[in-house]
């Protein structure tokens, strides 16, 4: 018997009204995420990943179709689908502690003030920011800001955690560090996660399942790749696993190879940009064999 999905997207359509007429961004999107599952969402730049995530978050509305959380249709944004924004979105006039505490005060009224405060400290500690707890966002590095943002998101104990390219703006070293930490935190907390990423390695390292979106307009979920790797995972043993490279090659081949994906993209620049992004993200990186 299949457990009830945590998150369900059914026959979702999105058409933007623009100055140049309607733009059909998403077509017939269907997906299910089980409780505790980590799903990665990939696809070329501009295909509609953020649009889909924003609709799931309730920050944007679907033209048609529905989003169900534990079987109930979502109504507007809410902390049960907490979002980690790409640009961190910390409030610049509050220090790390106050940013996290604001979320707890608003979303966890079930906890008394003392517990809210200790929870804020606990999550800040979990992302390794205890030493910077009283710093303002402008006094933090990009990686530290993203840690604070993740602490804030985890603190409200969401039913689904939504991540929109959370590490996209970070340098390679910091990104790896944060990926490892997110992996450890996820394995502890068993949160359900939907994450957008441009980075095939990141998707494989972290997720249980990778959803590939086709190019826009009218983007669909093209294919789905289960990640057949043992958990708990860690980066170094992953790099020794041949299954990792098999999947990685399939993902990259899919991103470039698929005829109908490219044929559909009538926006040439967009497609080119997407290809460049992937080349730099995955294929052109030094061969990972060197690291082992």
């Amino acid at each position, binding site marked *: 018997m299949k457990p009830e999905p945590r998150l369900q997207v059914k026959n979702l359509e999105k058409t933007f009204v623009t100055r140049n007429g309607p733009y059909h961004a998403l077509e017939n999107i269907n997906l299910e995420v089980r409780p505790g599952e980590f799903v990665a969402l990939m696809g070329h730049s501009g295909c509609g990943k953020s649009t889909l995530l924003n609709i799931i978050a*309730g920050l944007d509305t679907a033209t048609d179709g529905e989003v169900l959380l534990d079987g109930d249709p979502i109504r507007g*944004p809410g902390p049960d689908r907490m979002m980690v924004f790409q640009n961190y*979105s910390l*409030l*610049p006039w509050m220090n790390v502690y106050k940013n996290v505490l604001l979320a707890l005060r608003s979303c966890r009224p079930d906890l008394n003030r003392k517990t809210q405060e200790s929870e804020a400290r606990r999550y800040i500690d979990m992302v390794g920011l205890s030493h910077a707890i009283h710093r303002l966002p402008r006094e933090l590095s990009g990686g530290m800001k993203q840690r604070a943002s993740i602490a804030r998101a985890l603190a*409200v104990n969401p039913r689904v955690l939504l991540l929109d390219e959370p590490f996209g703006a970070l340098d390679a070293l910091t990104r790896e560090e944060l990926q490892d930490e997110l992996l450890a935190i996820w394995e502890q907390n068993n949160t359900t996660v939907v994450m957008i990423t441009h980075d095939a390695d990141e998707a494989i390292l972290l997720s249980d399942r990778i959803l590939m979106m086709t190019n826009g307009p009218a983007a669909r979920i093209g294919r789905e790749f289960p990640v057949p790797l043992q958990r708990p995972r860690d980066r170094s043993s992953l790099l020794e696993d041949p299954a990792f490279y098999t999947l990685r090659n399939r993902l990259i081949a899919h991103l470039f190879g698929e005829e109908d994906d490219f044929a559909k993209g009538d926006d040439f620049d967009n497609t080119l940009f997407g290809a460049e992004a992937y080349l730099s993200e995955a294929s052109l990186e030094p061969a990972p064999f060197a690291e082992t």
Partner: protein
Amino acid sequence: MATSSSSPKPLLRIWRYTTQRMLPPVVVIFLFLLIWQILCSRESAHLPTPTAVVSDTLELILNPFYNHGGNDVGMGWQIWASLKRVALGYSLAVVVGVSLGILIGISTWAMRGLDPIFQVLRTVPPLAWLPISLAGFQDNNPSAIFVIFITAIWPILINTSVGVLNIPSDYQNVSKVLRLNHWTYFSKIMLPAAAPYIFTGLRIGIGLSWLGIVAAEMLIGGVGIGFFIWDAWNSSLISDIVLALIYVGIVGYILDRIVATIGDRVAQATSA
């Protein structure tokens, strides 16, 4: 010239600061006074020389807080009377301007309804409000306060509404996802995000208030630095007018600096 910041001698640093920062204004002011002195020393001059101003107004300069009853009080008291009116009118303008600005910022309906009216009213020159407020209040003091209010309110109102309209969508999304209640959104997001804009309005407003009060007091009489100037003109005490202008300028400058300093602090505290 590059000054070495590692200079160990504090005396040397004070000397450098004095020569580099203090010297230019002192020289320029001296030259200005000199030219003034020369120009007004002719027999046919209508205006007093600087030395004449000082000797004519020595009593006023040395004793700013005398009180001989009625309107015959020192310059300090005159300024104080004007400042009290400004304080009242400006405070009212801040409260009403910020509130209405927020209303316009958050409600499209309020914006569509109020904005056209405000755009027309704000171009009315301050003194044009005086007769109508005299007619309404039948009293000098509230009329002057009203003129200050109506002069200062527009930049405050408009800048506040712009600040509220420009709250970054990131912060709005955060507040939506966290389902912040109205009060928390107002105090933790809207006010800090709009604060730099609000203070821009407050700074323009305080300047206009001070411009307005001097003009209004010239017309309504009683006490106040504006009336003092008008009274001095009627008594042909030109030196008194010159002294009053210097006072008006310095007080206006201080008011501006106070609001600007607070505004800079706030902008710094709320910047990303």
